[in-house]
Protein backbone atom coordinates (compact mmCIF):
# COMPACT_ATOMS: atom_id res chain seq x y z
CA UNK A 1 0.00 0.00 0.00
CA UNK A 2 1.09 3.54 -0.73
CA UNK A 3 0.83 6.67 1.39
CA UNK A 4 -2.54 8.10 2.46
CA UNK A 5 -3.93 10.68 0.02
CA UNK A 6 -6.30 13.53 0.79
CA UNK A 7 -8.41 15.74 -1.42
CA UNK A 8 -8.05 19.18 0.08
CA UNK A 9 -10.24 21.24 -2.18
CA UNK A 10 -12.21 21.51 -5.38
CA UNK A 11 -13.34 24.21 -7.76
CA UNK A 12 -16.12 23.97 -10.30
CA UNK A 13 -17.30 26.39 -12.91
CA UNK A 14 -20.98 27.09 -13.27
CA UNK A 15 -21.80 24.47 -15.90
CA UNK A 16 -24.05 25.19 -18.84
CA UNK A 17 -23.84 26.93 -22.19
CA UNK A 18 -20.70 29.01 -21.67
CA UNK A 19 -20.12 31.10 -24.78
CA UNK A 20 -19.35 33.99 -22.39
CA UNK A 21 -15.79 32.64 -22.11
CA UNK A 22 -13.41 30.81 -24.43
CA UNK A 23 -12.09 27.38 -23.57
CA UNK A 24 -8.88 28.37 -21.71
CA UNK A 25 -10.86 30.99 -19.78
CA UNK A 26 -13.37 28.34 -18.74
CA UNK A 27 -10.61 26.05 -17.43
CA UNK A 28 -9.07 29.02 -15.63
CA UNK A 29 -12.30 29.61 -13.67
CA UNK A 30 -12.10 26.15 -12.07
CA UNK A 31 -8.36 26.33 -11.40
CA UNK A 32 -8.62 29.79 -9.88
CA UNK A 33 -11.49 28.59 -7.67
CA UNK A 34 -9.55 25.68 -6.16
CA UNK A 35 -6.39 27.75 -5.60
CA UNK A 36 -8.46 30.40 -3.86
CA UNK A 37 -10.41 27.86 -1.79
CA UNK A 38 -7.25 26.18 -0.47
CA UNK A 39 -5.01 29.23 -0.44
CA UNK A 40 -2.12 27.82 -2.46
CA UNK A 41 0.08 29.34 -5.15
CA UNK A 42 1.14 27.74 -8.43
CA UNK A 43 4.65 27.25 -7.00
CA UNK A 44 3.22 24.95 -4.32
CA UNK A 45 2.10 22.24 -6.74
CA UNK A 46 4.40 19.44 -7.90
CA UNK A 47 2.53 18.56 -11.08
CA UNK A 48 -0.66 18.70 -13.09
CA UNK A 49 -3.03 15.99 -14.34
CA UNK A 50 -5.41 17.06 -17.07
CA UNK A 51 -7.98 15.37 -19.29
CA UNK A 52 -10.91 15.81 -21.63
CA UNK A 53 -12.81 13.80 -24.18
CA UNK A 54 -10.95 12.81 -27.39
CA UNK A 55 -9.31 15.69 -29.28
CA UNK A 56 -12.01 15.46 -31.94
CA UNK A 57 -14.48 16.85 -29.43
CA UNK A 58 -12.13 19.63 -28.32
CA UNK A 59 -11.42 21.15 -31.72
CA UNK A 60 -7.77 21.46 -30.67
CA UNK A 61 -5.34 18.58 -30.29
CA UNK A 62 -3.20 18.30 -27.14
CA UNK A 63 -5.35 20.57 -24.98
CA UNK A 64 -3.03 20.05 -22.01
CA UNK A 65 -0.43 22.03 -23.98
CA UNK A 66 -2.96 24.63 -25.15
CA UNK A 67 -4.03 25.14 -21.53
CA UNK A 68 -0.51 25.05 -20.00
CA UNK A 69 -0.80 28.63 -18.75
CA UNK A 70 -4.24 28.41 -17.14
CA UNK A 71 -3.28 25.02 -15.65
CA UNK A 72 -0.31 26.76 -13.95
CA UNK A 73 1.77 24.00 -15.53
CA UNK A 74 4.75 26.05 -16.67
CA UNK A 75 7.89 24.46 -15.29
CA UNK A 76 5.94 21.42 -14.00
CA UNK A 77 5.38 17.89 -15.20
CA UNK A 78 1.96 17.41 -16.81
CA UNK A 79 0.16 14.12 -17.40
CA UNK A 80 -2.85 13.72 -19.66
CA UNK A 81 -5.39 11.01 -18.95
CA UNK A 82 -8.19 10.35 -21.39
CA UNK A 83 -10.73 7.55 -21.03
CA UNK A 84 -13.84 9.02 -22.66
CA UNK A 85 -16.75 9.40 -20.21
CA UNK A 86 -14.71 8.00 -17.32
CA UNK A 87 -11.93 10.56 -17.87
CA UNK A 88 -12.80 12.40 -14.64
CA UNK A 89 -12.46 9.38 -12.38
CA UNK A 90 -9.32 8.34 -14.30
CA UNK A 91 -7.91 11.81 -13.64
CA UNK A 92 -8.62 11.46 -9.94
CA UNK A 93 -7.03 8.01 -9.87
CA UNK A 94 -3.97 9.36 -11.76
CA UNK A 95 -3.61 12.15 -9.20
CA UNK A 96 -4.05 9.62 -6.41
CA UNK A 97 -1.32 7.33 -7.86
CA UNK A 98 1.09 10.24 -8.15
CA UNK A 99 0.71 11.22 -4.50
CA UNK A 100 0.32 7.75 -2.96
CA UNK A 101 3.50 6.62 -4.75
CA UNK A 102 5.48 9.28 -2.90
CA UNK A 103 6.55 11.01 -6.11
CA UNK A 104 4.52 14.16 -5.37
CA UNK A 105 3.02 15.93 -2.36
CA UNK A 106 0.53 18.23 -4.07
CA UNK A 107 -1.03 17.60 -7.47
CA UNK A 108 -3.53 19.72 -9.37
CA UNK A 109 -6.12 17.57 -11.18
CA UNK A 110 -8.32 19.21 -13.81
CA UNK A 111 -10.98 18.01 -16.24
CA UNK A 112 -12.95 20.09 -18.71
CA UNK A 113 -15.29 20.10 -21.67
CA UNK A 114 -16.87 22.69 -23.92
CA UNK A 115 -19.41 20.41 -25.52
CA UNK A 116 -21.53 23.15 -27.03
CA UNK A 117 -18.73 24.09 -29.41
CA UNK A 118 -18.62 20.78 -31.26
CA UNK A 119 -20.84 17.91 -32.30
CA UNK A 120 -20.56 15.54 -29.38
CA UNK A 121 -22.54 12.61 -30.76
CA UNK A 122 -20.63 12.75 -34.07
CA UNK A 123 -17.44 12.67 -31.99
CA UNK A 124 -18.73 9.65 -30.08
CA UNK A 125 -19.00 7.69 -33.30
CA UNK A 126 -15.27 8.29 -33.93
CA UNK A 127 -14.56 6.36 -30.73
CA UNK A 128 -15.79 3.29 -32.62
CA UNK A 129 -13.60 1.18 -34.95
CA UNK A 130 -13.74 2.27 -38.60
CA UNK A 131 -13.92 -1.21 -40.15
CA UNK A 132 -16.90 -2.98 -38.65
CA UNK A 133 -19.01 -0.98 -36.23
CA UNK A 134 -18.78 2.80 -36.75
CA UNK A 135 -21.59 2.98 -39.32
CA UNK A 136 -24.17 1.64 -36.94
CA UNK A 137 -23.48 3.45 -33.68
CA UNK A 138 -26.05 6.15 -33.15
CA UNK A 139 -24.02 8.14 -30.64
CA UNK A 140 -24.27 7.30 -26.97
CA UNK A 141 -28.10 6.99 -26.77
CA UNK A 142 -28.12 4.08 -29.25
CA UNK A 143 -25.69 2.09 -27.13
CA UNK A 144 -27.49 2.81 -23.86
CA UNK A 145 -30.94 2.02 -25.14
CA UNK A 146 -29.73 -1.39 -26.35
CA UNK A 147 -28.17 -2.00 -22.93
CA UNK A 148 -31.30 -1.01 -21.04
CA UNK A 149 -33.47 -3.25 -23.19
CA UNK A 150 -31.20 -6.24 -22.68
CA UNK A 151 -31.30 -5.62 -18.94
CA UNK A 152 -35.08 -5.41 -18.65
CA UNK A 153 -35.63 -8.46 -20.89
CA UNK A 154 -33.00 -10.52 -18.99
CA UNK A 155 -34.62 -9.95 -15.60
CA UNK A 156 -38.18 -9.89 -16.87
CA UNK A 157 -38.84 -6.39 -15.58
CA UNK A 158 -42.08 -5.11 -17.13
CA UNK A 159 -41.58 -2.14 -19.44
CA UNK A 160 -44.02 -0.05 -17.39
CA UNK A 161 -42.06 -0.64 -14.20
CA UNK A 162 -38.76 0.33 -15.81
CA UNK A 163 -40.45 3.45 -17.18
CA UNK A 164 -41.90 4.32 -13.76
CA UNK A 165 -38.53 3.94 -11.99
CA UNK A 166 -36.68 5.91 -14.69
CA UNK A 167 -39.31 8.65 -14.42
CA UNK A 168 -38.87 8.79 -10.65
CA UNK A 169 -35.10 9.17 -11.08
CA UNK A 170 -35.57 11.89 -13.67
CA UNK A 171 -38.02 13.93 -11.58
CA UNK A 172 -35.92 13.59 -8.39
CA UNK A 173 -32.59 14.54 -9.98
CA UNK A 174 -33.96 17.49 -11.92
CA UNK A 175 -35.37 18.68 -8.58
CA UNK A 176 -32.07 17.98 -6.78
CA UNK A 177 -30.25 20.18 -9.29
CA UNK A 178 -31.98 23.26 -7.82
CA UNK A 179 -29.91 22.68 -4.66
CA UNK A 180 -26.62 22.55 -6.58
CA UNK A 181 -25.26 25.99 -7.51
CA UNK A 182 -23.08 24.50 -10.28
CA UNK A 183 -25.77 22.36 -11.98
CA UNK A 184 -26.79 23.01 -15.58
CA UNK A 185 -30.40 21.83 -16.05
CA UNK A 186 -32.80 22.62 -13.22
CA UNK A 187 -36.37 21.71 -14.00
CA UNK A 188 -39.54 20.84 -12.11
CA UNK A 189 -41.07 17.92 -13.98
CA UNK A 190 -44.31 15.98 -13.79
CA UNK A 191 -44.69 12.27 -14.51
CA UNK A 192 -46.64 13.10 -17.66
CA UNK A 193 -43.92 15.39 -18.94
CA UNK A 194 -41.24 12.72 -18.50
CA UNK A 195 -43.35 9.80 -19.77
CA UNK A 196 -44.49 11.64 -22.88
CA UNK A 197 -41.30 13.49 -23.75
CA UNK A 198 -39.98 13.04 -27.25
CA UNK A 199 -38.15 9.79 -27.93
CA UNK A 200 -34.38 10.08 -28.43
CA UNK A 201 -33.72 6.39 -29.09
CA UNK A 202 -36.51 4.13 -27.92
CA UNK A 203 -37.16 3.65 -24.97
CA UNK A 204 -34.95 6.59 -23.98
CA UNK A 205 -36.84 9.91 -23.92
CA UNK A 206 -35.65 13.49 -23.60
CA UNK A 207 -35.74 13.72 -19.80
CA UNK A 208 -33.88 10.39 -19.49
CA UNK A 209 -30.80 11.94 -21.11
CA UNK A 210 -28.03 14.21 -19.81
CA UNK A 211 -27.53 17.64 -21.37
CA UNK A 212 -24.71 19.05 -23.50
CA UNK A 213 -22.72 21.13 -21.01
CA UNK A 214 -19.65 23.32 -20.88
CA UNK A 215 -17.72 23.27 -17.65
CA UNK A 216 -14.54 22.45 -15.76
CA UNK A 217 -13.57 20.99 -12.41
CA UNK A 218 -10.26 21.29 -10.58
CA UNK A 219 -9.10 19.47 -7.45
CA UNK A 220 -6.02 19.30 -5.27
CA UNK A 221 -4.69 15.89 -4.19
CA UNK A 222 -2.29 16.04 -1.25
CA UNK A 223 -0.04 13.86 0.85
CA UNK A 224 -0.79 13.62 4.57
CA UNK A 225 1.98 16.08 5.36
CA UNK A 226 0.65 18.61 2.86
CA UNK A 227 -2.96 18.06 3.92
CA UNK A 228 -2.07 18.82 7.53
CA UNK A 229 -0.23 21.97 6.50
CA UNK A 230 -2.81 23.35 4.09
CA UNK A 231 -6.24 21.91 4.67
CA UNK A 232 -8.99 22.96 7.00
CA UNK A 233 -11.01 19.98 5.78
CA UNK A 234 -9.87 16.91 3.89
CA UNK A 235 -11.56 13.98 2.18
CA UNK A 236 -9.42 10.84 2.29
CA UNK A 237 -9.17 8.34 -0.57
CA UNK A 238 -10.39 5.06 0.93
CA UNK A 239 -10.63 2.94 -2.18
CA UNK A 240 -10.13 3.02 -5.94
CA UNK A 241 -11.22 0.56 -8.61
CA UNK A 242 -10.91 0.64 -12.35
CA UNK A 243 -11.79 -2.09 -14.78
CA UNK A 244 -12.16 -2.53 -18.52
CA UNK A 245 -13.49 -5.03 -21.02
CA UNK A 246 -12.66 -6.30 -24.49
CA UNK A 247 -13.26 -3.83 -27.26
CA UNK A 248 -16.01 -5.11 -29.53
CA UNK A 249 -19.54 -4.08 -28.70
CA UNK A 250 -21.53 -7.30 -28.81
CA UNK A 251 -18.84 -9.59 -27.36
CA UNK A 252 -19.26 -8.95 -23.68
CA UNK A 253 -22.20 -8.92 -21.32
CA UNK A 254 -23.29 -5.34 -20.62
CA UNK A 255 -26.03 -6.39 -18.18
CA UNK A 256 -24.20 -8.47 -15.59
CA UNK A 257 -21.50 -5.98 -16.39
CA UNK A 258 -18.03 -7.25 -15.50
CA UNK A 259 -16.18 -3.89 -15.57
CA UNK A 260 -18.77 -2.17 -13.36
CA UNK A 261 -18.98 -5.07 -10.91
CA UNK A 262 -15.20 -5.49 -10.75
CA UNK A 263 -14.37 -1.78 -10.36
CA UNK A 264 -16.80 -1.57 -7.44
CA UNK A 265 -15.45 -4.75 -5.86
CA UNK A 266 -11.84 -3.53 -6.08
CA UNK A 267 -12.78 -0.24 -4.42
CA UNK A 268 -14.88 -1.97 -1.73
CA UNK A 269 -12.05 -4.42 -0.94
CA UNK A 270 -9.58 -1.57 -0.55
CA UNK A 271 -11.99 0.45 1.58
CA UNK A 272 -13.05 -2.60 3.62
CA UNK A 273 -16.69 -2.26 2.62
CA UNK A 274 -18.82 -5.41 2.82
CA UNK A 275 -22.35 -4.05 2.58
CA UNK A 276 -22.25 -0.97 0.37
CA UNK A 277 -25.92 -0.02 0.80
CA UNK A 278 -25.52 0.01 4.55
CA UNK A 279 -22.02 1.38 4.86
CA UNK A 280 -22.00 4.10 2.20
CA UNK A 281 -23.72 7.35 3.19
CA UNK A 282 -24.06 8.76 -0.32
CA UNK A 283 -23.13 7.81 -3.89
CA UNK A 284 -22.43 9.94 -6.93
CA UNK A 285 -23.21 7.35 -9.60
CA UNK A 286 -22.52 8.30 -13.22
CA UNK A 287 -25.98 8.63 -14.72
CA UNK A 288 -25.95 10.05 -18.24
CA UNK A 289 -29.15 8.05 -18.73
CA UNK A 290 -31.81 7.26 -16.13
CA UNK A 291 -31.86 3.60 -17.13
CA UNK A 292 -28.14 3.23 -16.63
CA UNK A 293 -28.33 4.55 -13.06
CA UNK A 294 -30.73 1.69 -12.25
CA UNK A 295 -28.34 -0.87 -13.72
CA UNK A 296 -25.43 0.57 -11.72
CA UNK A 297 -27.32 0.14 -8.44
CA UNK A 298 -27.35 -3.58 -9.23
CA UNK A 299 -23.77 -3.86 -10.55
CA UNK A 300 -22.45 -1.99 -7.49
CA UNK A 301 -24.26 -4.33 -5.11
CA UNK A 302 -26.62 -1.66 -3.76
CA UNK A 303 -29.26 -4.35 -4.41
CA UNK A 304 -29.68 -7.68 -6.21
CA UNK A 305 -30.03 -7.85 -10.00
CA UNK A 306 -33.58 -7.12 -11.07
CA UNK A 307 -34.44 -5.18 -7.88
CA UNK A 308 -33.37 -1.63 -8.69
CA UNK A 309 -36.74 -0.52 -10.07
CA UNK A 310 -38.72 -1.73 -7.04
CA UNK A 311 -36.30 -0.15 -4.56
CA UNK A 312 -36.16 3.10 -6.51
CA UNK A 313 -39.94 3.31 -6.49
CA UNK A 314 -39.80 2.78 -2.70
CA UNK A 315 -37.40 5.73 -2.40
CA UNK A 316 -34.37 3.75 -1.15
CA UNK A 317 -31.97 5.79 -3.32
CA UNK A 318 -33.74 9.14 -3.01
CA UNK A 319 -32.49 12.12 -1.04
CA UNK A 320 -34.11 10.94 2.22
CA UNK A 321 -33.60 7.24 1.47
CA UNK A 322 -31.26 4.59 2.87
CA UNK A 323 -28.52 5.33 0.30
CA UNK A 324 -29.04 8.71 -1.40
CA UNK A 325 -27.69 8.64 -4.96
CA UNK A 326 -26.72 11.76 -6.91
CA UNK A 327 -28.07 14.44 -4.55
CA UNK A 328 -26.22 16.90 -6.83
CA UNK A 329 -28.60 16.03 -9.67
CA UNK A 330 -25.76 13.99 -11.16
CA UNK A 331 -24.65 13.67 -14.73
CA UNK A 332 -28.30 13.61 -15.78
CA UNK A 333 -28.49 17.37 -15.11
CA UNK A 334 -24.89 18.40 -15.81
CA UNK A 335 -22.53 16.77 -18.27
CA UNK A 336 -19.35 18.56 -19.35
CA UNK A 337 -17.98 15.09 -20.16
CA UNK A 338 -14.24 15.53 -19.57
CA UNK A 339 -15.06 17.10 -16.19
CA UNK A 340 -18.10 14.97 -15.33
CA UNK A 341 -16.31 12.11 -13.56
CA UNK A 342 -14.17 14.57 -11.61
CA UNK A 343 -17.33 16.44 -10.60
CA UNK A 344 -18.58 13.13 -9.14
CA UNK A 345 -15.37 12.90 -7.06
CA UNK A 346 -15.61 16.59 -6.09
CA UNK A 347 -19.22 16.13 -4.99
CA UNK A 348 -18.25 13.07 -2.92
CA UNK A 349 -15.48 15.14 -1.30
CA UNK A 350 -17.90 17.99 -0.53
CA UNK A 351 -20.29 15.49 1.07
CA UNK A 352 -17.78 13.81 3.40
CA UNK A 353 -16.35 17.17 4.47
CA UNK A 354 -19.80 18.61 5.16
CA UNK A 355 -19.45 21.32 2.52
CA UNK A 356 -22.19 20.31 0.06
CA UNK A 357 -24.50 23.13 1.14
CA UNK A 358 -28.15 22.76 0.19
CA UNK A 359 -27.64 19.21 -1.11
CA UNK A 360 -25.60 18.01 1.88
CA UNK A 361 -26.57 14.56 3.13
CA UNK A 362 -26.48 15.11 6.92
CA UNK A 363 -23.53 13.42 8.60
CA UNK A 364 -22.13 11.81 5.43
CA UNK A 365 -18.81 10.12 6.22
CA UNK A 366 -18.31 7.65 3.37
CA UNK A 367 -19.11 8.42 -0.28
CA UNK A 368 -18.75 6.61 -3.59
CA UNK A 369 -18.00 8.38 -6.86
CA UNK A 370 -18.08 6.75 -10.28
CA UNK A 371 -17.83 7.26 -14.02
CA UNK A 372 -17.99 5.10 -17.16
CA UNK A 373 -16.23 5.49 -20.50
CA UNK A 374 -15.98 4.16 -24.03
CA UNK A 375 -18.65 2.09 -25.72
CA UNK A 376 -19.77 0.70 -22.35
CA UNK A 377 -16.18 -0.48 -21.92
CA UNK A 378 -14.65 1.01 -18.76
CA UNK A 379 -15.81 1.76 -15.22
CA UNK A 380 -13.92 3.65 -12.55
CA UNK A 381 -14.73 4.19 -8.87
CA UNK A 382 -13.23 6.28 -6.08
CA UNK A 383 -14.47 6.02 -2.50
CA UNK A 384 -13.83 8.92 -0.14
CA UNK A 385 -14.10 9.10 3.63
CA UNK A 386 -14.02 11.80 6.27
CA UNK A 387 -11.39 9.91 8.28
CA UNK A 388 -7.93 8.77 7.16
Amino acid at each position, binding site marked *: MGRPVAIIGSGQTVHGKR*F*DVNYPELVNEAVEAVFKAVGVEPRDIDGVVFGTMPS*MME*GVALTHFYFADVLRAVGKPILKTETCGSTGVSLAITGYYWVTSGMADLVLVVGSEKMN*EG*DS*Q*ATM*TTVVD*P*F*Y*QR*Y*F*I*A*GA*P*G*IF*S*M*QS*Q*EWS*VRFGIPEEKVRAAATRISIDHHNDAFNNPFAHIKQRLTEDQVNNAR*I*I*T*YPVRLWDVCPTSDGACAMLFASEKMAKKLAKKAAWVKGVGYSGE*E*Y*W*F*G*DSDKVVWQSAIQAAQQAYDMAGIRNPRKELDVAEVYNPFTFQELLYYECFGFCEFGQACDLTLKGVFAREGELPCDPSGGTLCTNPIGATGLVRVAEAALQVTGQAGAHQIPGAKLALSHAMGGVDQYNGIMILGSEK
Partner: protein
Amino acid sequence: MKDFKTLPNVIRLPHKYGAGPVVTKFYNGLREGKLLGNVCPKCRKTFVPARSLCPECLVKMDTWVEVSDQGVLVSWAYTDKEFFGSPVKPPFVTALIKLDGADCNFLHLIGGDLFELKKKLKKGLKVKAVWNMEKKGHMLDIKYFEPVA
Protein backbone atom coordinates in the same frame (compact mmCIF):
# COMPACT_ATOMS: atom_id res chain seq x y z
CA MET B 1 -21.69 42.75 -23.63
CA LYS B 2 -24.00 39.86 -24.33
CA ASP B 3 -23.10 38.87 -27.89
CA PHE B 4 -19.85 36.99 -27.93
CA LYS B 5 -18.29 36.01 -31.21
CA THR B 6 -17.81 32.41 -32.26
CA LEU B 7 -15.31 31.20 -34.83
CA PRO B 8 -16.85 28.51 -37.05
CA ASN B 9 -14.51 25.78 -38.24
CA VAL B 10 -14.76 22.35 -39.86
CA ILE B 11 -11.72 20.15 -39.42
CA ARG B 12 -11.52 17.64 -42.28
CA LEU B 13 -8.57 15.33 -42.49
CA PRO B 14 -8.05 12.60 -45.10
CA HIS B 15 -7.25 9.21 -43.66
CA LYS B 16 -6.64 5.75 -45.10
CA TYR B 17 -7.14 2.98 -42.54
CA GLY B 18 -4.91 0.02 -43.41
CA ALA B 19 -7.21 -2.99 -43.01
CA GLY B 20 -4.61 -5.74 -42.62
CA PRO B 21 -5.06 -9.38 -43.68
CA VAL B 22 -7.99 -10.40 -41.46
CA VAL B 23 -10.30 -7.45 -42.18
CA THR B 24 -9.32 -7.64 -45.87
CA LYS B 25 -10.35 -11.29 -46.02
CA PHE B 26 -13.63 -10.51 -44.26
CA TYR B 27 -14.30 -7.63 -46.68
CA ASN B 28 -13.51 -9.90 -49.65
CA GLY B 29 -16.06 -12.35 -48.26
CA LEU B 30 -18.68 -9.59 -48.18
CA ARG B 31 -17.97 -8.86 -51.83
CA GLU B 32 -18.96 -12.46 -52.57
CA GLY B 33 -22.04 -12.24 -50.38
CA LYS B 34 -20.47 -14.31 -47.59
CA LEU B 35 -20.15 -13.64 -43.87
CA LEU B 36 -16.81 -15.01 -42.71
CA GLY B 37 -15.81 -15.64 -39.15
CA ASN B 38 -12.81 -17.18 -37.52
CA VAL B 39 -12.55 -19.79 -34.81
CA CYS B 40 -10.43 -19.64 -31.69
CA PRO B 41 -8.23 -22.77 -31.50
CA LYS B 42 -8.46 -22.66 -27.71
CA CYS B 43 -12.08 -21.86 -26.70
CA ARG B 44 -13.54 -22.93 -30.10
CA LYS B 45 -15.76 -19.86 -30.24
CA THR B 46 -16.56 -18.37 -33.65
CA PHE B 47 -16.23 -14.62 -34.06
CA VAL B 48 -18.01 -12.66 -36.79
CA PRO B 49 -16.85 -10.26 -38.15
CA ALA B 50 -13.45 -11.97 -38.17
CA ARG B 51 -10.69 -10.54 -36.04
CA SER B 52 -7.00 -11.29 -35.52
CA LEU B 53 -6.98 -12.36 -31.87
CA CYS B 54 -9.53 -14.17 -29.73
CA PRO B 55 -10.62 -11.44 -27.30
CA GLU B 56 -10.76 -13.96 -24.46
CA CYS B 57 -7.83 -16.32 -25.08
CA LEU B 58 -5.64 -13.76 -26.92
CA VAL B 59 -4.43 -16.33 -29.42
CA LYS B 60 -4.33 -16.05 -33.20
CA MET B 61 -7.43 -17.34 -34.96
CA ASP B 62 -6.57 -18.78 -38.35
CA THR B 63 -9.40 -21.20 -39.00
CA TRP B 64 -12.01 -19.52 -41.18
CA VAL B 65 -15.68 -20.47 -41.42
CA GLU B 66 -18.64 -19.08 -43.29
CA VAL B 67 -21.62 -18.41 -41.05
CA SER B 68 -25.26 -17.93 -41.93
CA ASP B 69 -26.56 -14.51 -42.90
CA GLN B 70 -29.56 -15.27 -40.71
CA GLY B 71 -29.82 -14.97 -36.97
CA VAL B 72 -31.86 -13.68 -34.05
CA LEU B 73 -32.28 -10.17 -32.71
CA VAL B 74 -30.57 -9.57 -29.35
CA SER B 75 -31.17 -5.87 -28.84
CA TRP B 76 -31.97 -2.79 -30.90
CA ALA B 77 -32.14 1.02 -30.87
CA TYR B 78 -34.35 3.18 -33.04
CA THR B 79 -32.58 6.37 -34.11
CA ASP B 80 -34.25 9.38 -35.60
CA LYS B 81 -31.46 11.94 -35.40
CA GLU B 82 -28.81 12.47 -38.04
CA PHE B 83 -25.22 12.72 -36.85
CA PHE B 84 -22.66 14.79 -38.72
CA GLY B 85 -20.81 12.58 -41.17
CA SER B 86 -22.94 9.50 -40.64
CA PRO B 87 -23.12 7.35 -43.79
CA VAL B 88 -26.47 5.90 -42.69
CA LYS B 89 -29.40 8.29 -42.87
CA PRO B 90 -32.10 8.19 -40.18
CA PRO B 91 -34.52 6.91 -39.26
CA PHE B 92 -32.70 3.64 -38.77
CA VAL B 93 -32.65 0.76 -36.32
CA THR B 94 -29.25 -0.32 -34.99
CA ALA B 95 -29.26 -3.92 -33.82
CA LEU B 96 -27.15 -6.57 -32.19
CA ILE B 97 -27.80 -9.82 -34.04
CA LYS B 98 -26.67 -13.29 -33.00
CA LEU B 99 -25.91 -14.93 -36.36
CA ASP B 100 -26.52 -18.67 -36.63
CA GLY B 101 -23.12 -20.28 -36.14
CA ALA B 102 -21.49 -17.31 -34.38
CA ASP B 103 -20.62 -17.00 -30.67
CA CYS B 104 -20.72 -13.22 -30.45
CA ASN B 105 -23.18 -10.56 -31.53
CA PHE B 106 -23.02 -8.78 -34.88
CA LEU B 107 -23.75 -5.05 -35.01
CA HIS B 108 -25.73 -3.90 -38.04
CA LEU B 109 -29.11 -2.44 -39.02
CA ILE B 110 -32.66 -3.69 -39.12
CA GLY B 111 -34.52 -2.23 -42.08
CA GLY B 112 -37.62 -2.39 -44.18
CA ASP B 113 -40.95 -0.83 -43.32
CA LEU B 114 -40.12 0.79 -39.99
CA PHE B 115 -43.77 1.29 -39.09
CA GLU B 116 -44.43 -2.45 -39.50
CA LEU B 117 -41.17 -3.28 -37.75
CA LYS B 118 -42.17 -1.36 -34.64
CA LYS B 119 -44.77 -4.00 -33.83
CA LYS B 120 -42.37 -6.90 -34.39
CA LEU B 121 -39.07 -5.84 -32.82
CA LYS B 122 -38.25 -7.95 -29.81
CA LYS B 123 -35.49 -10.18 -28.51
CA GLY B 124 -35.44 -13.48 -30.37
CA LEU B 125 -36.96 -12.19 -33.62
CA LYS B 126 -35.54 -14.15 -36.58
CA VAL B 127 -33.82 -11.92 -39.11
CA LYS B 128 -31.91 -12.35 -42.38
CA ALA B 129 -29.51 -10.15 -44.33
CA VAL B 130 -30.66 -8.15 -47.32
CA TRP B 131 -27.64 -7.70 -49.59
CA ASN B 132 -27.02 -4.89 -52.04
CA MET B 133 -26.89 -5.92 -55.69
CA GLU B 134 -23.56 -4.20 -56.16
CA LYS B 135 -21.01 -5.26 -53.54
CA LYS B 136 -17.86 -3.31 -52.78
CA GLY B 137 -16.27 -5.31 -49.98
CA HIS B 138 -17.68 -3.11 -47.21
CA MET B 139 -19.96 -3.49 -44.14
CA LEU B 140 -22.72 -1.70 -46.04
CA ASP B 141 -22.75 -4.43 -48.72
CA ILE B 142 -25.45 -5.73 -46.41
CA LYS B 143 -28.18 -3.14 -46.75
CA TYR B 144 -29.80 -4.23 -43.51
CA PHE B 145 -31.37 -7.25 -41.83
CA GLU B 146 -35.11 -7.86 -42.07
CA PRO B 147 -37.49 -10.17 -40.24
CA VAL B 148 -37.72 -13.66 -41.76
CA ALA B 149 -41.24 -13.92 -43.19
